[in-house]
């Protein structure tokens, strides 16, 4: 069954678990550095390896970041909470358990407002955010595809073992209808932006700082009980999240149509095909035998600490967008275009550097975006906000017109230098020599007596017909405003 048909026939319910690696200096329970890269098995201590006699101690910064995330998601911060052992055998977990939180998470019951591309708002109910640690990395050797099947043995690097994570779990998200896939990816994108605004993580999807598990189930109608769900693990880009949700909706609908049952299981997403495949069914192995971690004492975040952290919360991305739209006087549509193009910060910085908001928006979403598109780069990789502000400054000073400014911009994007340098070096500056401009104007007037008559008759638009020849004579460097003034002065004078 196709996705489009599936979504008409069934009501999808999604649930999302997001793991974010915190950008602390050290791991959650030991003083090993929390850094990306470095030689294998070097960012570790006896505690990272779970060696006998080693004991964990909680990283204060990790707790602080978890509380900040909880507050930003509108959660209640627990008066008291505990860590728990989640027991399972897998070589990337050296202790044979993951230190996590079970029935006492640090943050619970919040919500996240998300805005879809067309401006539709949606509220995502958050069940909890809890602290835990990341696992090491396995490399499977001997298998053709690097996956487990067919592998002879595995190599383990524990550098990532113990890196602080916060896991954010939603309640079942209902009422998305045919926008389920979009809601899923926008939610994760919104969280990513919040993590960055809070400065608690680099939150780079491509480095695995943010990872999502996507639960999908279908039911006959919004009144029916929830259907059996599948959990697609580790979907690690916004596009993949959308594809995985769409694929699961279509796949489950096909099974249901054939009278088959959905198996509750974890599934894997394949980037290449956009499909998911069966991982392992939920089974006895999911009995994690959680129990309170005896090596760690309860955590009781004082209300003073929580309020102190609440006071330091930065403006969150959604609030910031609303505020800037007002200050800049952008319409909803203009603001969405800017946000969707990822140009909000660039425009904010350009305005800080002295440009008018409307001009900053025009250049970033216009010519800079066009050039970037050609080069298959992001606009901010091409030029800096300071350069765009400088370009706009040159236009305002009457040294460049829009056409010349585009030439300057192209050269700046090609790395020829700063706007003012490029303008001088290439001789693109608007002709200040009034003599040359006057000559061009006189020539144009002499050559076009019919146009002159129209202008005299009050048809001001006709001036445009004279601008062509004037621009041609001055190689595009004439200031259109000055030329117009001169034309009127000569005709009416």
């Amino acid at each position, binding site marked *: 069954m196709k996705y489009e048909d599936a979504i008409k026939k069934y009501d999808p319910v999604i649930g999302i678990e997001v793991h974010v690696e915190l950008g602390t200096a050290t791991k959650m329970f030991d003083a090993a550095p929390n850094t990306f890269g470095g030689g294998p098995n070097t960012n570790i201590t006896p505690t990272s390896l779970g060696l006998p006699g080693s004991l964990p101690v909680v990283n204060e910064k990790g707790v602080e970041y978890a509380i900040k995330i909880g507050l930003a998601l509108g959660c209640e911060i627990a008066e008291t909470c505990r860590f728990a052992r989640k027991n399972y055998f897998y070589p990337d977990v050296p202790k044979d358990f993951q230190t996590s939180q079970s029935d006492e998470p640090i943050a619970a019951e919040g919500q996240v407002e998300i805005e879809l591309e067309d401006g539709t708002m949606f509220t995502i109910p958050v069940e909890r955010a809890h602290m835990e640690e990341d696992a090491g990395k396995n490399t499977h050797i001997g298998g053709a595809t690097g996956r487990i099947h067919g592998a002879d043995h595995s190599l383990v690097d524990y550098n990532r073992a113990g890196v602080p994570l916060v896991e954010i779990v939603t309640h079942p998200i209902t009422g998305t209808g045919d926008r389920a896939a979009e809601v899923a990816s926008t939610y994760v994108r919104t969280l990513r932006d919040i993590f960055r605004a809070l400065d608690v993580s680099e939150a780079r999807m491509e480095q695995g700082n943010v990872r999502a598990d996507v639960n999908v189930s279908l039911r006959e109608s919004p009144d029916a009980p929830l259907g059996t769900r599948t959990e697609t693990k580790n979907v690690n880009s916004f596009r993949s999240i959308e594809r995985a949700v769409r694929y699961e909706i279509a796949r489950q609908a096909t099974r249901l149509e054939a009278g088959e049952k959905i198996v509750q299981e974890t599934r*894997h997403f394949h980037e290449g095909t956009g499909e998911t495949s069966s991982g392992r069914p939920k089974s006895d192995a999911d009995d994690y035998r959680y129990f309170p971690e005896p090596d760690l004492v309860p955590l009781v975040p004082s209300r003073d600490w929580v309020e102190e952290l609440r006071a330091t919360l930065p403006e969150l991305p959604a609030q910031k967008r609303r505020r800037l739209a007002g200050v800049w006087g952008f319409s909803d549509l203009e603001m969405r275009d800017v946000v969707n193009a990822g140009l909000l910060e660039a425009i904010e910085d350009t305005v800080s550097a002295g440009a008018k908001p409307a001009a900053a928006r025009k250049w970033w979403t216009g010519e800079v975006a066009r050039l970037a598109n050609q080069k298959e780069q992001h606009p901010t990789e091409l030029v800096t906000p300071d350069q765009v502000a400088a370009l706009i400054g040159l236009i305002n000073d009457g040294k460049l017109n829009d056409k010349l400014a585009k030439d300057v911009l192209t050269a700046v994007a090609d790395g020829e230098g700063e706007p003012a340098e490029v303008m001088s070096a290439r001789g693109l500056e608007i002709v200040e020599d009034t003599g040359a401009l006057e000559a061009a104007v006189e020539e144009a007037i002499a050559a076009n007596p019919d146009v002159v008559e129209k202008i005299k008759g009050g048809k001001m638009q006709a001036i445009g017909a004279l601008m062509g020849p004037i621009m041609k004579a001055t190689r595009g460097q004439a200031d259109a405003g000055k030329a117009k003034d001169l034309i009127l002065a000569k005709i009416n004078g």
Partner: protein
Amino acid sequence: MTESSAITPEQVEHLASLSRIAMGEDELKSLAGDLSTILSNVARVNEVAGDDVPATSHPIALSNVLRPDVVGETLTNEQALASAPASADEKFLVPQILGEE
């Protein structure tokens, strides 16, 4: 001994399999009995602990033991791998992982 604290051989078998411990029929039966006795003895605590005594997970009344986020001493790769049964390419080498992912 109350009904709820009785442990069945099936429950022991389940726990043994989760813990990767192989056990025979006899062991499962005798351990079920032992565990039932241990649980019922521990359950006596409920008789003396009133509603005003909260459940605790730690023998010492301590909370908020935290450390500053400062990097400390780490192991070298050689030290880390010194006690490993097998290693390759500066990593721990473990047997093939079967049937799970």
